[in-house]
């Protein structure tokens, strides 16, 4: 089992890269190749985004499982490769949506991922760089930013490998440089 955390800004190419890594892990280890989709689809724009990502994944053998909350409850088997996309959606759902865990959102996500990891799966986790626009937001959004930073840091500490993707190029932040492509 292994854990890989991938971050990057909007349009950085992190999804495409994460998929490629998941496909390779699956080729090496067998099991199921699971795409844990976290986005709640409410409008045309998110529907189009889901469509675009689905199109990118087509023919690669992913089984899509919708899991907008409580990531630890995802049903997996040892040896599976699980691509979780993405933590920024998961956190927003846990914080703001009915059915989310509210104030214990960070624990829910971090403990949930720890639980998946302990089941012997290969995890590829996509998160989001939302930390560098220098703007001041309302209290709730500022809390969201701090929480996502804390979740990223907690998962990076657990991960074997942490990468930042910029212009589609993976930059190693933790782990062996030779592992990435």
């Amino acid at each position, binding site marked *: 089992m292994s854990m890989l955390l991938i971050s990057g800004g*909007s*349009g*950085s190419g992190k999804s495409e890269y994460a998929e490629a890594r998941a496909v390779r892990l699956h080729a090496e280890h067998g099991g199921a190749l699971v795409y844990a989709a976290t986005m709640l689809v409410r409008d045309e*724009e998110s529907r189009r985004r889901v469509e675009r990502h689905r199109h990118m994944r087509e023919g690669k053998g992913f089984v899509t499982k919708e899991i907008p909350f409580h990531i630890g409850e995802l049903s997996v088997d040892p040896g599976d490769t699980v691509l979780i996309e993405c933590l920024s959606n998961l956190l927003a759902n846990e914080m703001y949506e009915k059915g989310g865990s509210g104030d214990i959102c960070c624990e829910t996500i971090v403990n949930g991922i720890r639980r998946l990891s302990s089941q012997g799966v290969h995890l590829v986790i996509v998160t989001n760089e939302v930390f560098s626009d220098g703007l001041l937001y309302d209290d709730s959004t500022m809390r969201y930013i701090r929480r996502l930073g804390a979740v990223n840091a907690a998962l990076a500490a657990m991960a074997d490998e942490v990468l930042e993707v910029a*212009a589609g190029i993976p930059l190693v932040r933790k782990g062996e440089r030779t592992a990435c492509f």
Partner: protein
Amino acid sequence: MILVIGGRAQGKLAFAKETLGVTDYADGVLDDKNCICHFEAAVRRGADIPALEEYLARHPNAVILCDEVGCGIVPMEKEERAWREEVGRLCCYLAKRAERVYRVFCGIGERIK
């Protein structure tokens, strides 16, 4: 072609002048210069893949500088969201096509491709 990315005010142009031999540049437009500064502004003005290809056909050894704009909270305005994403995607496109890619941080250029 060389792509130089980095956050705002990180010294991309100074790096390009010192290290990549840039002397003259166009600012925010795909103009008839060998260097484009603020490619993200050109995207706002409608620069897309066909326009880029046309520019690159005339300037195969261009140096293109672009602010990274995707590392904030997703904007409320639809146009802003679309622009950020488009800048990111065009940077991915340029990076694939580029001979070299640098990322400038605090004035320090790191070659990432």
